[in-house]
């Protein structure tokens, strides 16, 4: 099976390079720790510019296990990001579908899309905060605004890619416009649409954080900003690290979702799905 061979090669190469990656990482951490201890004349200055990795780990322990401060902020940021991603995706996909179905709509929406594309969307943040307040919704709005583009562009592109022969086959079967749209065009576009969802999640996460940096009552952006203002840089770094770790987990989940959804691109999943459907039909 080609899948397992490529997977094995991947595992082998990872196995070979992993020790080197770990070594480089360890060396960097040690240099960082040493810089803090011996690189500055003043310990306060040292902790501000390069907080010790050991202290960052202790700060992580504190905010996650001892004091548990981080959880409500993490949950808040994730809530904003996921809500924003969903709203942005719904709007983006809705507009893209309308634009592919109607030439008139496509013409009228085009200048607005160009205008929106030219605007640095993060810069809209302060205006949203002014309009919607420090709570949940200003961050959700910014997350939705930055998330909107990926699903819009991908859905549009996917739906506009028409397989002439398949369209002709559907026409010869007397398919209605509705049937051709869902069973052929939308289904064929799923691969790109799913990639658009991944983009939306990643950008919504960034958008939510930026909105929180600007002004908010809770969230990881607020927490990190507070630690910076209090000059507890080890905690600020711990906050940053938490965002990285949980962001990574979120993107991996989206990756896995995409991998399972677009199962026909993968030989191994295809084999499994084929067996599953055979069993479901009651034929062994």
């Amino acid at each position: 099976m080609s899948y397992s061979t490529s997977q094995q090669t991947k595992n082998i190469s990872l196995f070979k390079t992993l020790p080197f990656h770990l070594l480089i990482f360890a060396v960097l951490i040690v240099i960082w720790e040493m810089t803090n201890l011996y690189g500055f004349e003043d310990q306060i200055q040292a902790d501000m510019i390069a907080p010790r990795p050991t202290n960052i780990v202790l700060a992580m322990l504190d905010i996650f296990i001892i004091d548990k401060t981080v959880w409500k902020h993490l949950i808040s940021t994730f809530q904003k990001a996921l809500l924003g991603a969903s709203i942005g995706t719904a709007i983006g996909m809705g507009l893209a579908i309308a634009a592919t179905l109607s030439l008139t709509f496509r013409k009228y929406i085009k200048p607005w899309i160009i205008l929106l594309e030219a605007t640095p969307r993060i810069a809209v943040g302060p205006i949203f905060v002014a309009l919607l307040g420090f709570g949940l919704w200003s961050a959700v709005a910014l997350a939705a605004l930055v998330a909107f583009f990926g699903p819009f562009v991908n859905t549009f592109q996917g739906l506009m890619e028409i397989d002439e022969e398949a369209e002709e086959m559907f026409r010869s079967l007397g398919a209605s416009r509705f049937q051709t749209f869902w069973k052929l065009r939308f289904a064929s576009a799923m691969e790109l649409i799913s990639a658009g969802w991944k983009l939306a999640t990643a950008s919504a996460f960034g958008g939510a954080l930026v909105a929180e940096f600007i002004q908010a009552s809770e969230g990881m952006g607020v927490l990190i900003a507070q630690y910076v203002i209090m000059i507890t840089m080890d905690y600020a770094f711990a906050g940053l690290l938490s965002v990285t770790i949980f962001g990574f987990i979120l993107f991996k989940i989206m990756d896995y979702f995409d991998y399972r959804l677009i199962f026909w691109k993968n030989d191994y999943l295809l084999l499994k799905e084929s067996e599953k459907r055979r069993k479901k039909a009651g034929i062994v």
Partner: protein
Amino acid sequence: MVATAKKAEDLSRFGQTVIEGKNVTKVFGETVTALEGANFDIQAGEFISLVGPSGCGKSTLLRLVAGLIEKTSGDVKVNDDLVTKPRTDIGMMFQKAVLLDWRTAIENVLLPSEMKHRITQEDKDKAMASLELVGLKGFEFHFPKQLSGGMQQRVALARLIQTGADIMLMDEPFGALDEFTRERLNVELMRIVGELKATTLFVTHNIQEAIYLADRVMVMTPRPGKIAEIIEVKFERPRDISIQTSREFNIIIEQVRDTLGSH
């Protein structure tokens, strides 16, 4: 009761004109005459091959009969109706199998039924039977990516059978396959068409294939595309693949070549 009535009807249809073209012309744009003044008359149960080089209008003729494109002038009639749009009594097959990658073979075959109504157990049984007829028993739950090119075309043929149409239009269905696979599928198509008693219009640029399968071969020539000659092929059915080496077969090949060469 119903079955016997249908059979009697089928028999009475035999020899009756199913597809008729009168002076059919198709001009693309302003100047490109793809088909000029084509006259044809296809009987129920007949197998007609359309053979000719690229640009001779054979695909255009097929698409006109299918109702996929509109004629410029003349008349195309199917079962005495003027063709204006795709019809349910016509099934089609193309050079590419055009299967949906995310559907298993049987789910692809069920597509025509889905267009008409909610899938029933009867549709599923019919799809299983269609797949068996094209020699894909045991492959019902394979996805297109798990099948060879020849097997994918078999699925496309099963999908055509599933439509229940008694007119089959095929546009170079085996054109992208290797010689061995093409030959095997020719033999199978001969058997299947015989079993279904369908009226078939088969476009190809392979002269052997055209003659082997057909009751009549319509030879077409390009610039402008027109029907140059209609040749009858009188071998008995079912035909063995070995007839292709017989003297009579080669005489017909020469005849087709002469027509194509003299234009």
